[in-house]
């Protein structure tokens, strides 16, 4: 029997504007497709869930794109098949939202649809940084969004932040971080601004129009955030994630712990554990048009799949497992690599678990690669 699935990811590939650094599967000019996309997504969830052992769900994550572009009704329509699968009592249902969309009406609709956790794309509060990142909201909008969500009833809010933005020095970054933390949110994700080759930012960096901060400056901002959030009472539980006690993102933790999940929507990935012990990753067609068409014809839109042998899957599990900072047991199958990495000062062993050292965090890819063939 395929291992029972407890986590569900839903993708909403629409945005009002494509920020120049973003390489997610999202589209700004196709918003007219939203109604038929919602129908297709809803159908795919039903069809997929009938084909595998799934639920009651412990976590649901609605990501994008910008899921907050969905109306209350549309969100209800998407959530209906989720409730048909069934949710565990106390299940975590996260939705990503753009600060521009956070109004008290929307907040009420999201709560009514079953969302329990809101992840806000704050990114920065510095006007210069927001302009650079091409965000359409201001810093004040973002702070207001947190307050509206809180007042409307969300008691589990994440703020997504970006550091290492050109033109933002260490003290400005700390100002953003402090101001967001001061709003009393439960969770912070702070990501280094990463230059992806297929983006406009990638092109600007290549042509020399934009110069990214050097590794030293990026790490300075990172470790300053680590220190500051610790003082503020957050637990640093994954390389880019911090939470107050009891508010870790259970959906993402399940992924880092290599638990299987189902992903629905355009370009969504799934990870399934088959009965013979192999791990299957599969992914849907990326474009919304093609996705809607495929679901209309076949109820699903699987575009590709890859089967990992147990050995390879163990390597992958170790590669992502080490990102969880309290330690992982996922490296057990690799005693030699583990010993080397401990010797190199990148990992420490502690009661059967290993976790990254400070240097190990800075070189986490090197650590992860050691477990791959």
């Amino acid at each position, binding site marked *: 029997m395929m291992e029972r699935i407890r986590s569900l990811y839903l993708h909403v590939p629409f945005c009002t504007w494509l920020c120049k650094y973003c390489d997610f599967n999202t589209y700004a000019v196709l918003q007219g497709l939203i109604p038929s996309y919602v129908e297709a997504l809803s159908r795919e969830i039903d069809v997929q869930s009938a084909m595998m052992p799934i639920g009651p769900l412990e976590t649901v994550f609605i990501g994008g794109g910008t899921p907050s572009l969905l109306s209350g009704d549309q969100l209800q329509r998407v959530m209906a098949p989720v409730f048909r699968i069934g949710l565990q009592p106390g299940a975590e249902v996260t939705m990503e939202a753009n600060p521009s969309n956070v109004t008290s009406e929307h907040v009420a609709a999201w709560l009514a649809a079953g969302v329990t956790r809101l992840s806000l794309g704050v990114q920065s509060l510095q006007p210069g940084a927001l302009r650079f990142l091409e965000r359409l909201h201001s810093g004040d909008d973002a702070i207001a969004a947190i307050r509206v969500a809180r007042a409307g009833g969300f008691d589990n809010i994440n703020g997504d932040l970006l550091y290492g933005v050109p033109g933002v020095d260490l003290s400005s970054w700390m100002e953003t971080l402090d101001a967001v933390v001061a709003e009393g949110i439960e969770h912070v994700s702070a990501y280094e601004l*990463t230059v992806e080759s297929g983006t406009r930012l990638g092109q600007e960096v290549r042509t020399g129009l934009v110069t990214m901060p050097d590794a030293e400056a990026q790490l300075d901002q990172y470790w300053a955030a680590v220190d500051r959030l610790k003082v503020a009472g957050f637990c640093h539980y994954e390389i880019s994630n911090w939470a107050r006690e009891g508010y870790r993102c259970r959906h*993402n933790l399940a*992924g880092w712990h290599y638990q299987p999940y189902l992903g629905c929507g355009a370009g*969504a990935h799934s990870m399934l554990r088959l009965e013979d012990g192999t791990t299957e990753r599969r992914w849907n067609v990326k474009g919304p048009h093609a996705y809607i068409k495929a679901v209309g014809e076949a109820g699903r839109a699987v575009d590709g799949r890859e089967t990992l042998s147990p050995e390879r899957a163990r390597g992958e599990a170790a590669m992502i497992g080490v990102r969880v900072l309290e330690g992982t047991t996922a490296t057990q199958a690799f005693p030699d690599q583990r010993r080397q990495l401990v010797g190199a000062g*990148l990992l420490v062993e502690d009661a059967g678990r290993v976790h990254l050292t400070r240097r190990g965090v800075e*070189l*986490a890819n*090197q650590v992860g690669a050691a477990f*791959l063939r």
Partner: protein
Amino acid sequence: MSTPTHLIRAISVIAHVDHGKTTLSDRLLEFTGTVAPRDMVEQVLDQLDLERERGITIKAQAVRMLYQADDGNTYQINLIDTPGHVDFSYEVSRALAACDGAILVVDASQGIEAQTLANVHQALDHHLTIVPVVNKIDLPHADPELVREEIQKVIGLPAESVIFASARQGIGTKEILEAVVREVPPPTGDRSSPLQALIFDAKFDAYRGVVTYVRVLEGTLRPKMRIQMMQTGRSFEVDEVGVFRPHRTEVEDLSAGEVGYLIANIRNVRDSRVGDTVTDEARPAAAPLPGYRHVTPMVFAGLFPTDTDQYQQLKEALERLQLNDASLVYEPESSAALGFGYRCGFLGLLHMDIVQERLEREFNLTLLATAPTVEYRVRLRNGEEVPVDNPDKLPDPAEIESISEPMVLATVVVPSTYVGNMMELSQERRGQFLNMEYQPGDRVVITYRMPLAEIIHDYNDQLKSRSKGYASLDYELVGFEEANLVKLDILVAGSPVDALSMIVERSKAHQQGRRLSEKLKTLIPRQLFEVPIQAAIGGKIVARETVPALRKDVIAKCYGGDVTRKRKLLEKQKEGKKRMKRVGNVEIPQEAFMAVLSLD
């Protein structure tokens, strides 16, 4: 039915690289019906994939064509295609010795170049009748008249004998064939004399053994005949004789003047050496043909499997390759840094490149090549003289009386604008200026005496880049000369890396050490720790650079589909690392070992 001797012709096509030799040969084959146009794989004569890709000929080919001339006679024209690179000049000389005439191809826009001249001189040395052809007359920048004048002035061939052609479009093909039967003399040999056949190439066939390419100069070669190789003394019984049309076609015999092949259960190309004379054991010729030379490699390098498990496979691959390439020599080598491999000798850098590529492609090996070096002659204080083809094996300086290095005579042909640049470059390379000649078409021929070591170090590339690609080079070995040389050692992370040692002129040693360390700094990827790179002469550090430790290598986001993407990225990086060699605990890429070649 055999062709009467007076209707036989044997010719070669000679040209500078890219002047259209192969295309012209293809047209001749087509025009004479030797190959039907529909069977015409572009460039029939270059058979190896590598040859086709690189547009160069490595092995000679010999095709028999039948041509009905305007005089009503059907001529047998044997076309011998010669290797087109300076590395293979001995093979070229033997192929030319098998001919009576040569079609000289000169590009209508490029004119005469260094190799054109070298080829012409060689052809004249072999008393070949030259049929000059100006090719590519259809190209926009073509100036056939100017090139014709150049041919008359530089080479001394009458302008009226020059044929204008475009091999690509088939223009001039018939005129060329007519000139060949009219101008090139028939062979002079006698079919009933004792056998004398010149070997001009040999190829290994997995089923039949060695296929030996010969031109019969005297007598007749037949199956069942017991033959002797006059230089090596080995004898064999002939199994089959035949000609190429263009595929192997068996014939009853090959008689004086004819070109073809023999198969005689020869298991190794070494027993069928280019330049050797085949004779009848029962009725041997009085003397072997002149011009035989035992080919010696000019350039040496270590080849090491990046994966030590592939050592045995490398050994077998070299054995197999050597069956077909008598000029490749190798012996086991062990390097403290690179483990077990082979020290190989090559005719030149191109030959080395080809061998490495064939080993990797045809035998599925991943190899690391050390920087090529020449063979030095070291005179020891005890009077002994030892050859050194590996810088790391240079004896202790205290024991050395003197070191000599191989010298070449280099001929550079270049438009006059770039003469200054060429002078400058050759001076940097320890060249002794010998002569300079102005020629029509704004061309200057400069000759230098220069250490071979300086030529193999990037000289040709520099020549091209400092002349916008116009300069061309040809060189020949002219002996050894004493020089003030020292060994430069490189230490990576404190340990000497034997494979990075080089022998350099003393006055340039400091500068070379500094440049090499700087270069290595850019080539050795950042590691988890700081890696010092030092250059040392006789234990004294003369330069130091540091590869800083890898500062940061972490992705910010790793969710859902990111995991697959990240795993693939990391797997790809790991794949790249497999091409590196771990020395101590430092990963050193292939380019680092070749860095000494391009220090300017």
